[in-house]
């Protein structure tokens, strides 16, 4: 197949894109050869929009998100374009990127304990960001730190500001991470599995905070998760990834109502959840997706999902299905798209 310029299909109004990721390819060189971690991901993100990246472990969600603020390890090669308000971040120097990070784009990681410094109080860690990027005085930064802790609904913020990370619960630490991430009012917040380590009752609070940031500050959010309930709760638009490729993109209601790709259909069928008004039948089986995720050692010219796909035919292994609309504003990379059953 000749190299496509871009398989990008606009799924929303492109004109007001705050962030535009175009034909992103990420390769890692390793001792055992290259790893094709991401192959041709494109999406636009508008101000105040929440875009979810979903897919199985290892499909490239985190590396896609980390490439945006330039946080990939040195053995990574990144191709494509990452435009923040028209400026290509891939062309920036390390110094220029550092100025963008934390100020215009910031990041919340999955594991809050390892991303906070255990040796400093949370207040000091929030102040540090404010002093570096905003040039606030220590006193002003302290007051702002208390406000930020209040914003993320930490009880008694005046007291908590002087505590160390180990004195807080997992849910509180995750909220402190969010407070640090939004300290400078970033335009884009990348949240990588922000609630995966938390319990549902705590998760609900963190999701509410993210929603509040979007509603009140207009922050655009890239939300990485494998929890389709979280997607249903929070996302405006969804990119489904499989083995480094985007396989389907759509507005959230459209995606859940009319999943087109067999992989998306499989994911939605595999979630255990209560069907309203349906009697629970003993022995009811969940739907499985048989088989394993392919290795990322090669980037074959065929559908990456074909080995596990119940619909696959000859054409699926003869070439790569293009990511094209199969319904209005709803592209899917599949030769046999449509809803199951």
């Amino acid at each position, binding site marked *: 197949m000749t190299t496509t310029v871009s398989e990008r299909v606009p799924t929303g109004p492109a004109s007001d894109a705050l962030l535009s990721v175009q034909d992103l390819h990420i390769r890692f060189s390793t001792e055992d050869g290259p790893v094709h971690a991401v192959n041709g991901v494109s999406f636009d993100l508008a101000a105040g929009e929440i875009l979810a990246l979903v897919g199985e472990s290892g499909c490239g969600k985190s590396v896609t998100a980390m490439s945006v603020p330039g946080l990939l390890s040195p053995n990574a090669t990144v191709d494509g374009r990452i435009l923040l308000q028209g400026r290509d971040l891939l062309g920036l120097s390390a110094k220029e990127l550092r100025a963008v990070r934390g100020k215009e784009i910031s990041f919340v990681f999955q594991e809050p304990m390892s991303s906070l410094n255990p040796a400093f109080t949370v207040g000091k860690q929030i102040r540090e960001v404010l002093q570096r990027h905003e040039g606030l005085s220590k006193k002003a930064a302290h007051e702002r730190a208390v406000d930020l802790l209040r914003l993320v609904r930490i009880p008694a913020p005046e007291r908590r500001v002087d505590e160390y990370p*180990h004195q807080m619960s997992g849910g509180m630490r995750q909220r402190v991470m969010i407070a640090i991430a939004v300290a400078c009012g970033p335009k884009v917040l990348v949240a990588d599995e922000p609630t995966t380590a938390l319990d549902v009752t705590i998760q609900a609070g963190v999701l509410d905070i993210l929603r509040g940031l979007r509603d009140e500050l207009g922050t655009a959010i890239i939300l990485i998760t494998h929890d389709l*309930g979280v997607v249903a*709760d929070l996302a405006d638009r969804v990119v489904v990834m499989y083995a480094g490729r985007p396989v389907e993109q759509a507005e959230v209601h459209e995606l*859940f109502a009319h999943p087109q790709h067999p992989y998306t259909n499989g994911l939605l069928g595999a979630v255990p*959840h209560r069907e309203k008004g349906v009697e629970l039948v003993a022995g009811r*089986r*969940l739907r499985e997706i048989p088989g394993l995720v392919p290795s990322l050692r090669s980037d074959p010219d065929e559908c990456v999902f074909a080995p596990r796909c119940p619909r696959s035919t000859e054409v699926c292994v003869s070439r790569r299905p293009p990511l094209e609309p199969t319904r209005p504003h709803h592209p899917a990379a599949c030769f046999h798209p449509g809803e199951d059953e």
Partner: protein
Amino acid sequence: MTSPRTDAPVLEVTDLVKHFSTGSGFRSGSGVVRAVDGVSFTIGPGEILGLVGESGSGKSTVGRCVTRLVEPTSGSIKLLGTEISSLSRRAMRPLRRQVHIVFQDPYSSLNPRMTIGQIVAEPMRLHGTAKGAALDERVDEMLEKCGLRSELRDRFPHEMSGGQRQRVGLARALALEPSLVIADEPVSALDVSVQASILNLITDLQRDLGFSCLFITHDLSVVEYISDAIAVMYLGKIVERTSREKLFRDPQMPYTQSLLTAAPVPDPVAQRERTRVVLRGDLPSPLDPPSGCPFHTRCPVAVERCTVEVPPLVGVTEPDHLVACHLVDRETGAPDIAAAAAAQGAEAGAGLQTGARRPA
């Protein structure tokens, strides 16, 4: 159950207590962690009991007491009618094969230096239930039952995916045909599509082999799918216990209600229309549990009495629907925490939000 068993419980736990002393904690000095604080339940033959609760509520500690991986502080544990809480290791030995545990983390729970075949064979070797060719055959049979091709027996754990490792853990646990399987978050570390296949596998095996199961999880949607009865734990105590149907139809304890409303459903229309209650605060420390009802610090409907008096776990509306809450009433049933939260939501700083959302 088709097997000719009596209905005598397989497991009977009464007033189980496990306190850990935290030697010389550098920040809070020494203290006692009340990890499990008076827990009682029974599991009948072929029954699956789901044990649900927040991280740190004491679920794993219950499972580890039952398998005697930790010594209970007090209380009674009867396995197949025999009191095992105070049995010596030696006296416990013949009963060991009756109970097996499957752990959450498929990465660290298998010995990395043993092959899959050796891992599955080990309990049978230790108990001398099979040897030589018969043992090999039995290993292949167990691997196959758990959906693994028998040629995988020469592989090492690191050469397998998370889902495959969890299947190995199950094959090992079931090799001795135990009466009771303790499954401690067996699917929590797995992707949804892999989760589904493991849950299906457990249901199939349970139907074929007829074991009883204590299924520990923090995810209510998982136990709803798999269990017959459900017990909800909060801070070392069971706060609600009943059949699966009753728990989901009529959740009574405010904590159970909040768990149910907090878990997002994978349907954007339904999810965005729901009234959710977001609890204030975090799980209190088991080093210093609240007085009265352990949930009162976060409960949207708590009254004065909740802060001083511990509510007993009793059947209020029905004898087999046990709940520990002062506000559940024989006539009017459970308090409606969504309505309470909505009423309080109007007040500033009430610490709760209801799901009044901006339209999508």
